[in-house]
């Protein structure tokens, strides 16, 4: 994959996505959705004294399919974790759906990186999806018919009907990711945040899941934010992007963000060093999770 090429594939985007995109561009303020889904204000985060993100200010408009991109160690995952209260902020603030996260928890669905989910956990696919209803039912209340309906619909939309009774650890990477997406859908949240959703996923599943996410945003009410490493997919399918490299290099409609100049600034030497291995299919999937983003990392 070549970065320059990917920014030029921008024009190949399908008509329905262009619509979504136009809406995002033409009415960025005013109208129904003047409050952004997520907004970072001067956010600074550090791990063990070392800064991971500094002076991060940008927003994700409501109703967009948005991506957070950047080189390894750029702080992509850190940015969403900071927004969701999973890592403490040194400085700055975050507004979620126009307010504090704790006011809107059940309206935010989160799909974490796969390696943060307990491996070998004895659980069936349907139990994972049902977990998406916990935020609505609290610690004790039984799941209702409405919950069952939400679960059934999520299962149907993600195409995992045949897998519901399978143990999770016997599913493939793509199937697992469908299950986690179903959990997020079952939650019926307004904001979906996905951290590296497509790392262990085959191209066909990735395309199908991206379709589903785009479909979800098409109503203008739902917002999807994915930390993503594949710039070509982002250019082709996403409305909105933020390019990070320690801080925000660019943020806005995808064609304004993925420009050669911005990418060069963000990837810098990384690009030059990777020019050749990039052709090798085995490196197509970036080893995107870098050490500084891991909670377990040690100096």
């Amino acid at each position, binding site marked *: 994959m070549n970065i320059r090429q990917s920014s030029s594939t921008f024009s190949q985007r399908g008509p329905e996505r262009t619509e979504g995109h136009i809406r995002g561009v033409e009415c960025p303020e005013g109208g129904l959705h003047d409050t952004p889904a997520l907004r970072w204000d001067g956010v600074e985060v550090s791990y063990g004294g070392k800064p991971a993100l500094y002076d991060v200010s940008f927003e994700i408009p409501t109703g967009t399919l948005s991506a957070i991109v950047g080189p390894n160690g750029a702080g992509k995952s850190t940015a969403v974790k900071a927004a969701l209260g999973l890592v403490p902020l040194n400085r700055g603030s975050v507004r979620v759906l126009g307010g504090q996260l704790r006011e809107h928890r059940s309206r935010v669905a989160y799909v*974490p990186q796969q390696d943060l989910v*307990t491996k070998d956990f004895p659980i069936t696919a349907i*139990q994972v999806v049902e977990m998406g209803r916990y935020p609505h039912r609290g610690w*004790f209340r039984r799941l209702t018919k409405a919950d069952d309906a939400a679960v059934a619909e999520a299962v149907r939309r993600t195409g995992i009907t045949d897998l519901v009774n399978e143990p999770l650890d016997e599913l*493939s990477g793509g199937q697992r990711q469908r299950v986690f997406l179903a959990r997020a859908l079952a939650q019926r949240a307004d904001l979906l945040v996905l951290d590296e959703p497509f790392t262990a996923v085959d191209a066909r599943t990735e395309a199908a899941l991206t379709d589903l996410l785009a479909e979800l945003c098409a109503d203008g009410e739902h917002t999807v934010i994915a930390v993503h490493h594949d710039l070509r997919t982002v250019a082709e399918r996403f409305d909105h992007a933020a390019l990070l490299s320690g801080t925000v290099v660019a943020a806005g409609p995808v064609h304004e963000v993925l420009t050669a100049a911005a990418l060069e600034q963000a990837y810098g030497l990384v690009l030059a060093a990777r020019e050749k291995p990039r052709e090798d299919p085995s490196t197509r999937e970036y080893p995107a999770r870098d050490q500084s983003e891991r909670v377990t990392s*040690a100096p």
Partner: protein
Amino acid sequence: MATDDLVIILTAGSLATACGLLGPFLVLRRQSLTSDAIGHAVLPGVVGMYLLTGSRSSLLATLGAAAFGLICVLGFDALRRTRLLGTDAAIALTFPALFSLGVLGISKFASGAHIDLDSTIYGEITFAPFRTMAIGGLDVPRPLLTTVLTAVLTLAFVLVLWRPLHALTFDPEFADVTGMRGRLVQRLALVASALVAVTAFDSVGAILVVTFFVVPAAAAHLVSNRLDTMLLVSVGIGWISAIVGQRAAVAYDSSIAGMIGLTAVCCFLLIRLFAPRRGVAWRLVRGRPARARGQPKNTSASA
């Protein structure tokens, strides 16, 4: 079977119930060895309270033990946070020191009728039937009462916190984002484990505490596809170990705690070998399951 034997089996079984309910959470969160550390670390609490009050089986001794269990957990958490050493090194640095304090306390001041080094290794379950207290005119063995109470409280704990425990053990970030109070529940679970470990220490000694928490849970992990099944199987294996172990100890005139531990390990090995789908023998005959995950990994390198 004499009444005394029955009392021992019921005591061990209740203990296995409490440990079998909490063990799976430790095993799944890769915190198995926390139970080992707590089992050792409670000793200075028991000894200290004995030196202060002159009695061992009082509520105070339990409190002292629990306090040191907590000190141990907080201690290695603080060490881990320095980022100078990994979790396992932090555990390995904390509990031997606390256990040493206890051993020194015993050998210098407390060696006497009520507390000795043997009981820290073998536990006191053999004497469970004789340590009685009167309740409503009935002589009830005090250890039996304590372990049954512990088992009931643990069951209540797991039932009440089932959803947060389930979600946070499976996917801690999801639990945090959805406001399940993940960190709080995690701490509560550690405290509960520490309290159960105190009870276990009294019955089976410092070293076999980890056996009760980990071995049945690890065995159950091999045959369960749901968390609730895993807990049930884990408790079941605990009871089998209690019954078979006690009978074997009587038959061979051996340590009850040791025999219960050996039985649990035998259960584990049998399941490891012959479990459907995941057993070693099964795989030799049928081939590996679709996505067996078994690649050994280096745990986070310390330092």
